[in-house]
């Protein structure tokens, strides 16, 4: 996880016990903390309470394998920003972290630039060379997901789960995904952007920028 996030350009630190975690958050402020609920030495929920008592503004994503609804509700009530159930795609975690950091640092960070493309994450609009590209909601989400995980291969399953959620029963071939990718590519190419979305042998996709 640390490798993946480091490669995505984040500065990451990781600890494995409750007490190490408390020590770290006493000493440093983080943009985002990814918190497992079950930790050796204590509950992740207690760390969350500790953070909120200290009025720390660190963003928190809770990770739990329990899938127990109570944990999710308690976590969000205490003040977690997001909740992920194990197992998840690292690309999904990456998008959630990016979203939290964007929310925390509101000053102009809502615009993501990639090549000659600018993505406004608040207005949910995309500009290529100052020209707005009309995208559907799904296409916008797809572009954002690819952009945040740029230069990485994303499986069709990861993309489908990000766009449609986890309670869907996807057909094995993910054909329906293909048309969305195709439309998105067509729209941004027509607007004059280079074709940066690569298909990886039809198994996955990648947004390639140098």
């Amino acid at each position, binding site marked *: 996880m640390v490798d993946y996030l480091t490669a995505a350009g984040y500065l990451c630190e990781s600890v494995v016990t409750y007490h190490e975690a408390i020590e770290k958050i006493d000493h440093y402020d983080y943009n985002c903390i990814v918190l497992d609920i079950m930790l050796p030495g204590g509950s992740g929920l207690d760390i969350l309470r500790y953070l909120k008592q200290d009025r720390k503004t660190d963003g928190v994503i809770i990770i739990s394998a329990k899938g127990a609804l109570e944990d999710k509700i308690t976590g969000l009530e205490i003040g977690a920003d997001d909740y992920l159930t194990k197992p998840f795609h690292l690309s999904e975690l990456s998008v959630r972290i990016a979203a939290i950091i964007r929310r925390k640092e509101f000053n102009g960070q809502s615009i993501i630039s990639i090549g000659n493309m600018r993505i406004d994450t608040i207005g949910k609009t995309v500009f290529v060379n100052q020209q707005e590209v009309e995208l559907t909601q799904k296409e916008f989400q797809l572009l954002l997901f690819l952009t945040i995980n740029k230069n990485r*291969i994303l499986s069709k399953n990861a993309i489908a789960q990000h766009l449609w959620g986890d309670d869907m029963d996807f057909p094995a071939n993910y054909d329906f995904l293909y048309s969305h990718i195709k439309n998105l590519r067509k729209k941004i190419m027509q607007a004059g952007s280079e074709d940066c979305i690569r298909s990886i042998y039809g198994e996955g996709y990648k947004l390639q920028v140098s």
Partner: protein
Amino acid sequence: MKLFARYNRINITATILIFVFGSIAFYFVLQYVLVRQLDETLRGEQQEIVEFVKLHNQLPDIQNTKHQWITLQPTMFMQGRSRAKSILVYNKREDEQEWIRQLNFTVNTSTGMYSITVNKSETETEELLKGIILVTIGMIGVILLFNYLINRKMVTRLWQPFYNTIASIKEYHISSQQPLQLAKEPIDEINLLNESLNQMTHRIHRDFHALRSFTENASHEMQTPLAVIRSKVDTLLQETEGRKETIQQLLSIEDATHRLSKLHQSLLLLTRLENRQFLFDEPVDLENIIETKSEERKELLQAKNLSLQLNSVPVTLNFHPHLAEMLITNLMNNAIRYTPEGGSILIQLTTRQLTISNTAIGEALDTTRLFERFYKTDPASEGTGLGLAIIKQICNAAGFTIAYQLTNGKHQFTIQFIS
């Protein structure tokens, strides 16, 4: 019939019977005693006359009173042992028939033999008897009445703790945070009941929570390695330098991990459903869920060229929001998965039932095995085989009934909200 009413009925019948027989016996005993007393007075009188005759050899002066009088009459025969007897005579003064007690005996005087009869009216005795009987019956009545009233009032009060206990048991749910805590009561039996219930729920509670934390921990222990596998696959995927075979293999590992994790979540959900770990007490807007979930599946439907028709009215049920979503998504996923390309799905929601039907290929499904875990018509199918089992269990837990039938070439599942 309430315990007390039954007890009261027996009690009152027995009491009345005892009082009736008691009163009859009392009447005869009392009468016997009073008559004996009368006879004693008569014999006293006889004694006096006999002694007087012995002493003076002549009859004494006879003074009659209203209630006691003596008649004499010369006789030729000597009468043997004298006996007292009751006879009915006419009383001129009172103009009525009345019972008198008389004792007849003979004395021998200088002027000859006389038969003497000592009479004593029984009216006094009878009146006394009447009075006593009246008072007794009156008292019995009063005792019965008071007994009944006191019982009625007291019993309701005495049983109140019992009804309190029943009310607490009714409200108790196994997944609540606390075991049952019934208060101490002054009455031993109720106290015993409460203590036993407290102990029992305490044990159940402990076992239940142990089981629950076991399933949750087991789940955690299993999902964590799966999460590690998936994140390693994600990482490896980036390092393959574009080799097709490697990518395909990694993706099939990822897919298997995903399936395994889904399967495990489903089994866990089934366990929790069977343990009745959910409360169905939140109002849930079913129509809204159906609309949202159909909207989310728009692209999937388009990809398979399926048409989805929704006929619904607003329906709000007391349900569990998460399970309501599970129910709807499982039904929809099922329909979408098994409808052949170009087919149609119809969802009908009324206040009484939810019906979802889809174009069928082949024959009707085996209704006896349909809702079993891991039952698949096509063993090669990708589904977990748990979807319908989950639907069935959710319905069971919520008190709904679910039925399947094949009508007009359509698989049709009907969920009745009111059973």
